[in-house]
């Protein structure tokens, strides 16, 4: 029998990007843009559906290249274009619960660029993951967003 465990945590990450909020928002909203960064480190996405709208649900199967065993089941709860995205996602590994998260992404103008704040409220289930590991994964994805964005701030493109 599985020992049942629920460990709660909150992860807070901040990044400043040299791209306008509209571009940063598009990195989440547009399937092609999101596919460039939506998995940590060198992991791969084996399958992914897109439905970016309030009430929309997405499924993503991902993980190490030789064993993409994780499934994220995402539901978009609140979307304010260029400002805010609130979504939940449950994560399972071969059908076993790993975690459930409530994630808030806020974007605000920062000069010609964007300040992004990500707050993930999460419950890790049955010891299958932990806060340090999740934070490392999220940080990796936020860094990849930065690498995927055009580096020229809008003010210098006359």
């Amino acid at each position, binding site marked *: 029998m599985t020992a049942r465990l629920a460990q709660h945590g909150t992860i807070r990450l901040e990044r400043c990007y040299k791209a306008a909020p509209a571009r940063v928002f598009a990195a989440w909203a547009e399937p092609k843009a999101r596919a460039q960064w939506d998995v940590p480190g060198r992991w791969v996405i084996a399958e992914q559906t897109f439905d970016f709208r309030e009430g929309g649900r997405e499924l993503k199967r991902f993980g190490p290249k030789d064993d993409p065993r994780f499934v994220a089941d995402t539901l978009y709860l609140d979307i304010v274009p260029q400002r805010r995205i*609130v979504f939940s996602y449950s994560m399972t590994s071969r059908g076993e619960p790993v975690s459930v998260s409530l994630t808030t992404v806020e974007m605000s103008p920062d000069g010609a660029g964007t300040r992004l704040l990500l707050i993930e409220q999460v419950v890790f289930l049955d010891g299958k993951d932990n806060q340090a590991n999740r934070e490392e994964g999220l940080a990796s994805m936020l860094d990849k967003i930065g690498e995927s964005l055009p580096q020229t701030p809008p003010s210098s493109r006359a």
Partner: protein
Amino acid sequence: MTERSTKHATFTIERTFAAPPARVFAAYADVSSKARWFVGPEGWEKSNLRLDFKVGGHESVSGGPPGGPVHTYNAIYQDIVPDERIVLTYEMHLDKTRISVSLGTTEFKPAGSGTRLVYTEQAVFLDGHDDAGSREQGTGGLFDQLARFVEMQ
């Protein structure tokens, strides 16, 4: 234009009930049982509770003071372990305005012949609506109603 803001908060409520975990869990899983205790304060107008108690299933109920704003609760079940755990996310609307989104974990643990229930809510309050203090108080009122329901069975 609406001023946009978010406020994140976490609170935990613990209660011990004089009823075994299976009976307390059943008060969540069965729609006619849940409708008995998962209701707003005395005097509120109420809608029918809709409950599809399975992972991915939805739940909704609304109510409010006569002539006042309608409070609407919409939940989705994220993880269910019978007699042990329920994880859901829910949003609250006040009339047409979404005021919060929450992740709620309910754990049911044996305590002698009764149950220790631990409820943890991780919430984000939107655009200055509601706050963790009043949410915690309102949720505590629901557990008072749950205690009366499971202990009189």
